[in-house]
């Protein structure tokens, strides 16, 4: 291996740089995909059903423009809104719209049924305004749909078609709004604007978080390694592996999403670890001067570090690959990106870094590692090991109780798929969404498409029953269907004394002739969103004022109940249903990925410690951390969403290293004939300190996530710090206490790979930790070497 690296050092270095740079050059061509429905697989039922509905009635993602003032019904305000409405009506990208100027009033007068515009002429005096106010309040197609009941807000709802790119249409709407003058305050909401903000924020996050994380890591490396020349070696691995990983996005035809942002951050936080170990060990050996040549130096470094780095890398990759069990697409893609990046970092750490170190040895560069006072640190670790040695039973008990206490929060855990909640409460998108949800019935929708003879009274009555029942469900803002229009028409045709008044007619012909009458007064396209012109498909549109998973679940269940045995084919779709399915996928994916990661790590630990019991004990900190993580999320109200669902796999992948390092180091001490107490004290003083700094550097790498524009990414940042902290405490408190208390036999076995390399292996993992930070703790490094 060493000979190979030395012989092909230039090829290794060149290939690593070329691979990283060429993949990095692809990154700018990455496109952003803000479409949340692309998160779920195309064959998922809710998505395919939604496509069916959209092929008939168009995409139901609505832009909602809100106009608010203390009193919205003034001549000037209405004139301003009318001008905006007229300009929007001219946009080819807008397929339909609902505004105060498109809504009609169906009424009966002097033997006539009329379907007049709500506002034919904008009133210019107070009497006219008062009449308009009364008209709005009595019109079920206007009240809280185009004008809020409190008369403070008006809305224009525009459906965006696919004849033009959504971004172009939104840009044109923005231009119309910008050129409009008046007193009304304008807010923009709805899924197309949410997507626009996501695109903007993904770019912003990418430009802010990745450089920030790199800067943080640069500082960590500088503090750890001292010399800039040493810093640049692991740092270049971080940059190159990140480039390789992110370059895969355009190469594989994927698109950047909110979750894609996590992959480079994971890499920046994790990919430097192996390099730190190698460069620190190099600094340590060089400082001691006990090597004969460059080749000898490399043999010394790799002989002691190859296997532990490989184990650490493999467990991290295994944990991250748990994400492949998710059915949500970005989770799988994120898993592949991060695993590829870690693999690249691992491979480069074992080839490219030694090649660079060899070159540096040849050039005769000196070493000037950082010097940091460490006495205080050692005192704390000594006290901690004393506590564990003397009270191991109590430490286990308290740890178990704390874990159990926090785990109780799992009962309160929520699943969040509402895209609106990606944004902070003070963001314009969130403010507009709140107004839409509280005053206009909500912007997120469920669509029910009925296929059959819509003029059949049984079908129409069924539609009416669904409309009424769903309309009375908590969290549902508005329901629109053709049956409402039929009932309004019946009110205009019959008198309240007649049984047909406000009812669905009893015959197919009656319904057909009602539509004929309406067409004489209204516009056939007035119903285009509720029924196709062939009258073979009807569309029930449900708007949710509370688009939470529980409300969506209630509505879905009610629809299933109401449409059992329905005289027509029923298709249920819409954005909210896709989100509900996504929530189910998140839960399933969360469980599967966790199981995959834990089982894989258990197997790896079993192999490493050559004992199933060893594997189980090694898994305890991870399992406890999983419970603590979900319990903490439940207690603090942080929901599982598409970002936080990835957390546990990352935690398992990264957190397992600490346990391996501690147990390996402990094993070395035990095999040297030390007592359990002495082994604990020494392991804590040597590897313990390194683990803490290692965990600190990983946490520091994730820290910039708290500056993300997306709430779920921020929460990911907070939670990863908590979960890595939990793994750290598990490895340094719980594991030592368990080993101390139960004295398992596997920990006394010889864990080295082969007898011939025994001497190398004896010091291998302890050096992973101590070597990395030996300059921060010279005493610890020397003690481990001397043991």
């Amino acid at each position, binding site marked *: 291996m060493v000979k190979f690296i030395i012989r092909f050092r230039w090829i290794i270095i060149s290939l690593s740089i070329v691979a990283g740079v060429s993949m990095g050059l692809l990154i700018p061509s990455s496109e952003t995909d803000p479409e949340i429905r692309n998160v779920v697989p195309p064959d998922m039922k809710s998505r395919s059903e939604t496509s069916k509905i959209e092929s008939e009635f168009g995409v139901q993602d609505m832009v909602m423009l809100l106009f608010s003032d203390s009193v919205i019904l003034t001549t000037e305000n209405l004139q301003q809104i009318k001008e905006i409405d007229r300009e929007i009506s*001219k946009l080819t990208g807008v397929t339909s719209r609902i505004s105060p100027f498109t809504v009609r009033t169906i009424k009966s007068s002097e033997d006539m049924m*009329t379907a007049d515009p709500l506002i034919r002429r904008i009133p210019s005096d107070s009497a006219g305004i008062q009449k308009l106010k009364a008209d709005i309040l009595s019109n079920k197609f206007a009240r809280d749909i185009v004008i809020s009941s409190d008369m403070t807000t008006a809305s224009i709802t525009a459906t965006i078609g696919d004849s033009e790119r959504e971004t172009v249409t939104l840009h044109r709407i923005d231009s119309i709004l910008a050129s409009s003058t008046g007193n009304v305050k304008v807010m923009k909401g709805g899924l197309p604007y949410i997507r626009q903000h996501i695109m903007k924020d993904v770019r912003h996050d990418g430009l802010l978080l990745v450089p920030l994380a790199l800067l943080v890591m640069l500082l960590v490396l500088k503090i750890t390694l001292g010399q800039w020349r040493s810093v640049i070696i692991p740092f270049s691995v971080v940059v190159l592996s990140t480039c390789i990983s992110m370059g895969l996005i355009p190469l594989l035809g994927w698109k950047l999403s909110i979750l894609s942002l996590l992959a480079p951050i994971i890499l920046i936080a994790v990919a430097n670890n192996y390099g730190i170990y190698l460069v620190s060990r190099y600094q340590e050996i060089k400082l001691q001067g006990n090597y004969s040549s460059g080749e000898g130096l490399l043999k010394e470094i790799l002989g002691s570090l190859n296997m532990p780095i490989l184990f650490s890398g493999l467990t991290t990759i295994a944990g991250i690959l748990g994400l492949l069990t998710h059915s949500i697409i970005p989770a799988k893609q994120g898993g592949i990106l991060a695993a590829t990046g870690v693999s690249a970092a691992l491979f480069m750490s074992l080839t490219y870094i030694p090649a660079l170190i060899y070159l540096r040895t040849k050039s005769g560069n000196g070493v000037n590692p950082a010097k940091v006072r460490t006495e205080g640190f050692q005192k704390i670790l000594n006290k901690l090991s004393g506590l564990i040695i003397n009270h191991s039973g109590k430490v286990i008990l308290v740890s178990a109780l704390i874990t159990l206490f926090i785990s109780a929060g799992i009962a309160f855990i929520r699943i969040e798929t509402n895209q609106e909640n990606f944004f902070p409460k003070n963001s314009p998108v969130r403010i507009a969404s709140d107004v839409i949800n509280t005053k206009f019935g909500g912007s997120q929708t469920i669509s029910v498409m009925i296929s059959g003879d819509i003029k059949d009274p049984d079908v129409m009555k069924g539609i009416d029953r669904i409309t009424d029942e769903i309309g009375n469900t908590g969290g549902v803002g508005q329901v629109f269907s053709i049956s409402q229009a039929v009932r309004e028409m019946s009110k205009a045709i019959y008198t309240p004394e007649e049984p047909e008044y406000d009812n669905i007619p009893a*015959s197919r012909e009656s319904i*057909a*002739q009602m539509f*004929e009458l309406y067409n004489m007064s209204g516009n056939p396209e007035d119903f285009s969103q509720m029924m196709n012109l062939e009258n073979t498909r009807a569309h029930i549109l449900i708007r949710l004022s509370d688009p939470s998973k529980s409300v969506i679940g209630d509505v879905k269940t009610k629809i299933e109940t109401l449409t059992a045995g329905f005289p027509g084919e029923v298709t249920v779709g819409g954005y909210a249903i896709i989100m509900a399915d996504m929530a189910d996928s998140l839960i399933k994916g969360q469980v599967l990925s966790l199981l995959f990661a834990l089982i894989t790590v258990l197997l790896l630990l079993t192999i490493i410690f050559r004992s199933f019991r060893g594997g189980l004990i090694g898994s305890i900190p991870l399992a406890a951390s999983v419970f603590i993580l979900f319990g903490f999320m439940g207690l603090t109200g942080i929901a599982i969403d598409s970002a936080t669902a990835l957390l546990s796999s990352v935690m398992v992948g990264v957190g397992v290293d600490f346990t391996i390092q501690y147990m390996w180091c402990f094993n070395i001490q035990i095999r040297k004939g030390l007592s359990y107490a002495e082994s604990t004290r020494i392991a804590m003083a040597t590897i313990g300190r390194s683990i803490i700094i290692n965990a600190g550097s990983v946490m520091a790498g994730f820290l910039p996530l708290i500056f993300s524009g997306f709430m779920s990414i921020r929460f990911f940042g907070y939670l990863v710090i908590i979960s890595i902290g939990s793994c750290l405490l598990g490895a340094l408190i719980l594991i030592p206490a368990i080993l101390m208390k139960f004295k398992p036999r596997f920990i006394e076995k010889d864990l080295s790979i082969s007898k011939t390399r025994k001497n190398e292996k004896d010091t291998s993992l302890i050096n992973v930790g101590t070597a990395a930070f030996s300059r921060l703790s010279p005493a610890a490094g020397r003690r481990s070497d001397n043991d």
Partner: protein
Amino acid sequence: MVSTMQATISLLIVEKNGATRNRTIAMTSKSFADGLEKRIIKFLEPADVRGTAMLVVDNKNTADEIWIYLPALKKTRRIASSENAKSFMSSEFSNADMGSPALSDFKSQHTTGSGTNNTWIIESIPVSDDKADEYGYSRKISYVSMDTYQVKKMEFFNLDNDHFKTIEITKFHPMPEGKFMVSDMIASNTISGRRSEIHFNNIADRVKVEDSFFTVQSLAR
């Protein structure tokens, strides 16, 4: 003016996506003194609207009167005269297109290019905003043959002055006294992409029809 006339009218509605719907109606019209004309329209197809009947009283100088009888509902309802702009049988033709608009409702003048290419180009603008609302357009450009005095094409502009509809008259049927009636026309909506075609078949003139046939009471018969 011809005293009486009967015809069967087929209406073809073509959606933007190419889907088509057919409707068939029977029309009987009679001219009365002072330019008054009355029409009875009976729906033959589709089956679910068969028996639906309309009476249109086309006054020369006052607003039209329209009644519709719906047999399944057993109701007769008046259609507001202000709804001339509304769709005729869900087609691109409006109620006004099926009648003769009152000349006094418009100010008409020759426009640019009129008198060339054997065509008069006449611009008609509603006399008031109310009339514009009633007819559903702010402007109409008619292309009239200078030889035959027949209107070949009409272009309609909505209240935002955007061109939204064109009616092309593709066939005229010769009537007594050297007159002609429109027998085939096509309305194309430039915004919705829909198209409607109307064809007059089995045209018969000077048929004997009693005046009492053109009453609201007769609609239900």
